[in-house]
């Protein structure tokens, strides 16, 4: 029992931090400027706790008490680390963002922490009801965060869209859970795995249907084709740091549970591999086509997020269920998170009052007036495009090696073709920043945390790249 709580310490810290922030906000004891460092401290503490509460291998907390709801493995630990780091950097860049934008409230940070709680739980779930609850904890906080700027029409549209579709997803997930429970009289992953290995996957139609609904729900949340249409509008409507948070932490959490669910049993995964194969291809190319046409940065980044989902799906197809090691997925998620958070952190302070600089053209000549910010953005973009020696390259490298190794040569080659296509929209911003004359002086409110956050992340891009992993 003590050990259980010890393993869940990061979750406890974030949860307590969220409640603390909420209470301080309610009594008006905390200024907006001071809330960001508090939130950062909470995430940093949880991060340190997560690093040190180590187990090696597979451990199930609440194995006896709550009948195997959660699991702690190296995979979930690293996923949690990524989520906590995302929370930390989002809080950091939000502080600068709210100097230029006037709708900030202390509750904002509390919501970030709450959604992180949901994500941490989700990554560790080994049971469908727990997964559903954590999914909703996460989603509800994110809905509020997306629509946080009440006076913004685009934000309201985004939140409505996301809420409606998200509600459908939740319903799909519940439906799937119900079907699986009907077939198995259990919602535990272990039980599902045992059932499939003794009876076979296609023994029970309810199980097949249930798995289908659940996977559709996951595919919606990660914005895979054909469930990607909401992403561009929602990301566009949300405020800058929130978009960054959604694009990284949320994706990490969902991919963690997605991988855990698929790896229940080799039969379940292999029955889905061929569909995921096509979904991955369509996601990459669909995302690229959408991204090429965009005029504003946020929409381009949203669409490029779809492309990155495609790469991650390649990794899901390629990893083997027999001896599942999620290193490839996690490395890519970390590399992607660093560069995406970095670029959103930079944009958080560069967009200026009321996010007035949004289009590619608005960043013309940035390199002349703010050379360091432009250099950092360039690093992030090169990492997203997968140019060595950045983290993005190593991430893509591992994914493609594991794809070829799993015999998916077609998928590997198509992944590379897709990254050739993506060069265009990443280069476009670099060209605008460097090769054109400035039309704007890029004045922003003075703030320290946003630029500092960008700098740290730019260093991380290289640091992660040189950190080798074992496949």
């Amino acid at each position, binding site marked *: 029992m003590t050990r259980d709580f010890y393993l869940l310490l990061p979750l406890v810290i974030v949860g307590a931090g969220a409640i603390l922030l909420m209470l301080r906000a309610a009594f008006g004891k905390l200024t907006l400027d001071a809330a960001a460092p508090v939130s950062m401290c909470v995430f940093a503490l949880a991060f340190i706790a997560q690093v040190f509460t180590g187990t090696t291998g597979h451990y199930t907390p609440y194995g006896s008490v709550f009948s195997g709801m959660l699991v702690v493995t190296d995979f979930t630990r690293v996923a949690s680390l990524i989520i906590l780091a995302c929370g930390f950097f989002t809080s950091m860049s939000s502080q600068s963002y709210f100097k230029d934008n006037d709708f900030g409230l202390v509750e904002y940070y509390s919501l970030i922490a709450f959604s992180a709680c949901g994500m941490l739980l989700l990554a560790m779930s080994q049971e469908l009801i727990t997964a559903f609850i954590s999914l909703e904890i996460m989603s509800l906080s994110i809905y509020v965060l997306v629509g946080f700027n009440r006076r913004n029409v685009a934000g309201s549209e985004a939140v409505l869209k996301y809420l409606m579709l998200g509600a459908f997803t939740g319903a799909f997930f519940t439906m799937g859970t119900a079907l699986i429970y009907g077939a198995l009289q259990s919602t535990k992953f272990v039980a599902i795995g045992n059932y499939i290995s003794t009876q076979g996957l296609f023994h029970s139609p309810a199980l097949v249907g249930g798995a289908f609904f659940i996977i559709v729900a996951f595919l919606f949340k990660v914005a895979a084709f054909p469930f990607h249409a909401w992403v561009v509008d929602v990301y566009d409507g949300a405020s800058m740091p929130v978009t960054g948070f959604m694009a990284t932490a949320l994706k990490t959490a969902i991919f963690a549970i997605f991988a855990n669910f698929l790896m229940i049993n080799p039969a379940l995964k292999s029955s889905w591999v061929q569909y995921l194969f096509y979904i991955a291809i369509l996601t990459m190319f669909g995302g690229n086509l959408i991204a090429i046409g965009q005029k504003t940065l946020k929409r381009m980044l949203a669409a490029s997020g779809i492309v990155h989902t495609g790469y991650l799906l390649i990794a899901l197809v390629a990893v083997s269920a027999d001896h599942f090691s999620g290193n490839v997925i996690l490395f890519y998620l970390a590399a992607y998170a660093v560069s995406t958070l970095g670029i959103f952190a930079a944009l958080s302070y560069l967009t200026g009052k009321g996010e007035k600089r949004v289009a590619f053209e608005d960043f013309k000549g940035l390199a002349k007036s703010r050379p360091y910010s432009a250099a950092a953005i360039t690093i992030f973009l090169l990492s997203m495009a997968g*140019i060595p020696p950045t983290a993005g390259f190593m991430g893509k490298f591992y994914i493609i*090696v594991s794809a*070829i190794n799993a015999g998916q040569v077609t998928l590997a080659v198509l992944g*590379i073709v897709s990254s*050739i296509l993506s*060069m265009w929209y990443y280069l476009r911003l670099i*060209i605008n920043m460097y090769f054109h004359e400035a039309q704007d002086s890029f004045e922003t409110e003075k703030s320290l945390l946003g630029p500092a956050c960008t700098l740290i992340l730019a260093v991380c891009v290289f640091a992660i790249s040189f950190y080798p*992993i074992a496949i």
Partner: protein
Amino acid sequence: MFEHILSSMIFLPIVAGLLLLLFPATKSGARAVGLVVSVAVLLLGLKLYTGFNGAGGMEFVERQTWVQSLGINYILGVDGISLFVLMAGAVLIPLIFLVFSTKPKGYYANLLIVEGAMAGAVCAGDLILFYIFWEVMLLPIFFMIGLYGGQGKVAATLKITIYTIAGSLLMLAAILYLGVTYHNQFGVWSFDMTKIAALQLHGTAALLAFIGFMLAFAIKIPLFPFHTWLPDAYTEAPSAATFILSAIMAKIGVYAVIRFVIPVFGIEFTRYALLLAYLGVIGMMYCGIAAIAQKDFKRMLAFSSASHMGIIALGIFCMNIQALTGSLYQIVAHATSTGALFLFAGILEERSGTRKIDDLGGIASQAPIFAFFFAIAMLASVGLPGTNGFIGEFLIILGAIKFNVIIGVLAGTGLIIGVCYMLWMFQRVFFEKAKDSTAKFRDLSSAEVVAFLPIVILIIVMGIYPQPFLKKIEPAAKMQISSISQQVQVADTIVLEKGHKPEQK
């Protein structure tokens, strides 16, 4: 430091360049740093050259484990082939810092980074390491063309970047395929070039991987018909970037074919050598004819450079010792002559304010020293006996005739085209009447004379007494050729054994 002489040659300029980018510096300060660092690299290079004993194998090897689980290692080394490409860079780059004295800080910083990255690509003995340097060396060029280029710089930048990245990403797929195949055949991961060469590849997959590699290098060289980015990029790029692209980077493409394609894909290479050789000859003639028609001085040189790259590439596709040695020799010869020509073009443009051949004229009477130096570089580029261009082209054509008479004859006659455009251009620019733009053309300063003198001397020495240089190249060339014939023999015996089997039954 001297155990890590290659690492220092790679990372000294890269680190210096990055520091220059990060910290404020004046133009002259940046130039001084660039000059000091590039001269230091040159000294290291000279030490390397004298210490190189030329037995044919890899020397100065450095080896460090990097990603153990995937067998990616940090391996550096030079042999007779890479030594000359490396030295061409080390000798020529200090020139840029001497000649161009008033450029912005970023210009010098990018030059340093590209110098280091090119050295890295040349010395890398691990495929992944090579790929990383290969990509990194494009980035400074991207920024140099985009930031300091001419009128159509954005379009030219996009064209060269997307073109070359598309090629190199396909090569990445091929590299990874090789790594995975090695893992399947031998049970361990490795991207070490010496080990990958032991792979037995056959079938469609091998062909596709071969195409992946060849495409990347054909774009970089550039081999006809992948040359379309070249005229735009060479013309719009600032002179130093054009210099780097034509004098050194294009050579790395040729070098990479020798180093990475021939040892692994000997069979595919032999099968398609004739086709590739024809592409080389066609490119040589096509770009030569296009050069005649150019009105822009720099664009003409760009086409001329592409035309010469065609014949250098031809030398490797002929697969015999004469042609291969000739190609390697010509790599250095062409680097000195074309490099010097592009630098002269930069000086010409700065002092006359125009690049149109029609607007120039009569420079020889205004600036006799400049005209004299220019003439030597030009004659070397044309391949006049007594200059280093002659030795290389002579050997290549000799080998080409041995390989295939038609190709040899075509290549030999193609050289005449080069004489046409060069001499005609020289007549129009340096003789005839002086125009407004050239009426007050300033001659080379004594500092510039000092800068160019070593190159001119090198051109002549290499043309008159090539033996010491050839001696270092030949053992490595012999090893390459024997590696091809070995692979082909092995493949033949496999086919024969398969053919015999039904009879035995």
